[in-house]
């Protein structure tokens, strides 16, 4: 299949900083693609370069096979939903949605039905004659969506579309955006700093840091098999344990890890020297007594802190050598009386759940 968007060695420099650093990847048609990263990682710059709102970079951006070099923002087959929505305050909802069609000379007979259709799609039909200052944040966002979709773009760009909404509405809109994307079958590229948003909506996610793409993968792979400390730490919670490779073992590595002593962990590739062992908090078992299993990695420690979240508790355990591990515990009867500060406990997990991170 031919990619709908192809980013080829794109670099964008500002005085003193490289916002986007030699980035290359392809986005397939009908994909829901997310650019995820902390603020200042270059994700918004990259999105704006695709839209043509940011110029003066190096490398090539191809949309549907066409090189966008020298193509102005208003001539590109993409549309954007802005972070602030940028719904024109001096026009009604209907005029906002019709704007993009009017200014590009769409026949009037076609504009009316298309605008109505777009408004229906985002359930804003009844509010068509309102001014933006009479709308809530969520409603304004729907208008921004309808305004972009009515143009039937090849790619819809969304810049932090949910960041201005409150938590409840945000969750609702996540679902709705994902449904909408499936229903109309347009490629969505969303920029977000919220990992939950990216994991729950996107088919594929590009994690960015300091202008570089660190990893591109589906949500599950990204969570289960992060390739670097940065990605592992950025997506969800994780325990990172300093370790040193002491030699190869059968289908794995022998390492001497801080607080754990000598452990054997599975690893496909080669590794030597200093590495990090990574294990998700929900993979750890919290036990009152020493574990019986000989294959598991286990360590003894003392509960330092318990953060209670209702369904689960996040328990911080101090282990030998100053190692700090966190573990997620389901708040059921099994842990009754166990989660107390200062209590001596055992932590244990399967070696397969341990990742060896070399970068």
């Amino acid at each position: 299949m031919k990619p709908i968007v192809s980013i080829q060695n794109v670099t964008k420099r500002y005085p003193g900083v490289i916002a986007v650093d030699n980035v290359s990847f392809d986005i397939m048609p009908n994909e829901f693609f997310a650019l995820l990263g902390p603020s200042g990682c270059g994700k918004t710059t990259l999105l704006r370069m695709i839209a043509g709102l940011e110029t003066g970079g190096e490398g090539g951006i191809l949309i549907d096979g066409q090189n966008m070099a020298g193509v102005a923002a208003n001539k590109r087959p993409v549309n954007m939903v802005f972070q602030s929505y940028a719904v024109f305050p001096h026009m009604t909802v209907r005029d906002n949605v019709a704007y993009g069609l009017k200014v590009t000379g769409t026949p009037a007979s076609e504009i009316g039905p298309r605008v109505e259709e777009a408004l229906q799609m985002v359930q804003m039909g009844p509010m068509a004659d309102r001014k933006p200052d009479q709308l809530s944040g969520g409603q304004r966002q729907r208008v921004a969506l309808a305004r972009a979709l009515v143009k039937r773009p090849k790619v819809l760009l969304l810049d932090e579309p949910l960041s201005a909404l409150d938590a409840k509405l945000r969750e609702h809109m996540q679902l709705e955006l994902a449904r909408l994307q499936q229903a109309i079958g347009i490629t969505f590229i969303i920029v977000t700093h919220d990992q939950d948003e990216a994991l729950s909506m996107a088919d594929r996610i590009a994690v960015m840091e300091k202008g570089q793409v660190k990893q591109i993968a589906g949500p599950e792979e990204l969570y289960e098999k992060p390739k670097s400390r940065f990605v592992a730490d950025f997506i969800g919670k994780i325990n990172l344990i300093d370790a040193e490779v002491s030699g190869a073992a059968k289908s794995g590595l022998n390492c001497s890890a801080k607080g754990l002593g000598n452990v054997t962990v599975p690893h496909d590739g080669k590794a030597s020297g200093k590495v990090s062992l990574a294990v998700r908090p929900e993979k750890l078992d919290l036990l009152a007594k020493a574990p019986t299993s000989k294959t598991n990695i286990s360590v003894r420690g003392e509960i330092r802190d318990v953060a209670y979240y209702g369904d689960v508790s996040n328990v911080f355990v101090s282990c030998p050598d100053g190692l700090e591990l966190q573990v997620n515990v389901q708040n059921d009867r099994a842990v009754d009386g166990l989660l107390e500060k200062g209590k001596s406990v055992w932590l244990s997990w399967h070696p397969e759940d341990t990742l060896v991170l070399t970068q």
Partner: protein
Amino acid sequence: MAGKNRSRGPLDYGRSPWLIGFGILVFVLLYAPIVQLIAFSFNDSKRNIVWQGFTTKYYKVAWENASLVEAFTNSIAIAIMCTVVATIIGTATALWLWRFRFPFKAGAEGVMALPIVIPEICMGIAVLVMYSRIGGWMRTFESGPIHWWNELFSIWPLNLAAITAAHIAFSFPFVAVVVRARLAGFNRELEEASKDLGATEWQTFRNVVLPFMMPGVIAGALLAFTLSLDDFVITFFTAGPETNTFPVKVYSLVRRGVSPDINAASTALIVITLVATVLAMRLQAPSKSEG
């Protein structure tokens, strides 16, 4: 974007050659007459068109013109007195309108803004009419108060008081506007925090509110100074036959034509205005970051 590193973004209007060209043209046209005026004050030619060589003799000519110097001194004296009083009254007014809720407040704000919005000429004739009325009343008392009144107002700089009073009336609302704009950015919780920590009303004002609004007060004072120095119309109507101010004097000279000594005197006034402006900006600058 193919390699063109310096290409303009869609909103990069600041780099549009048309806009830059237009901007430069406007700046040149704006400054050319003033630069010419200053340059020709040093020109060794009475005709004032062709550059004949550098001279400062017209400054000497202007300096030796006693009535011009007197007018100049009067203008500066008026401006300084006006600045002091207008800044105090304007700051008080700003605090009043900023701090209190009271009946007919919108009306009070509107009236306070009147001197800013109405045409200068209306104000000029209004003040003229009032002073002529006062003069009329004084005459009816004959040998009574008119005597000490005349005595009093023959002492410099009190003879300028009538003009100064009118200048204060039209410039203090400007001060109030500037100071109030500054106060609008004040976080009221700072005031509450100060009182919560045990400071009195006056200590709070002295240590918290006043330092915050100081840049606004300085900007307001500068505005009052330049407004007073700039004023021609009100002085033109208020000034009696004996008192002369610089703009009125220049006006009478200009009507007779262009001459280099006016250029010299004007240059002196421009320099004073600009120095005052730059000075006030300097004083204002360090505290800008905290706002």
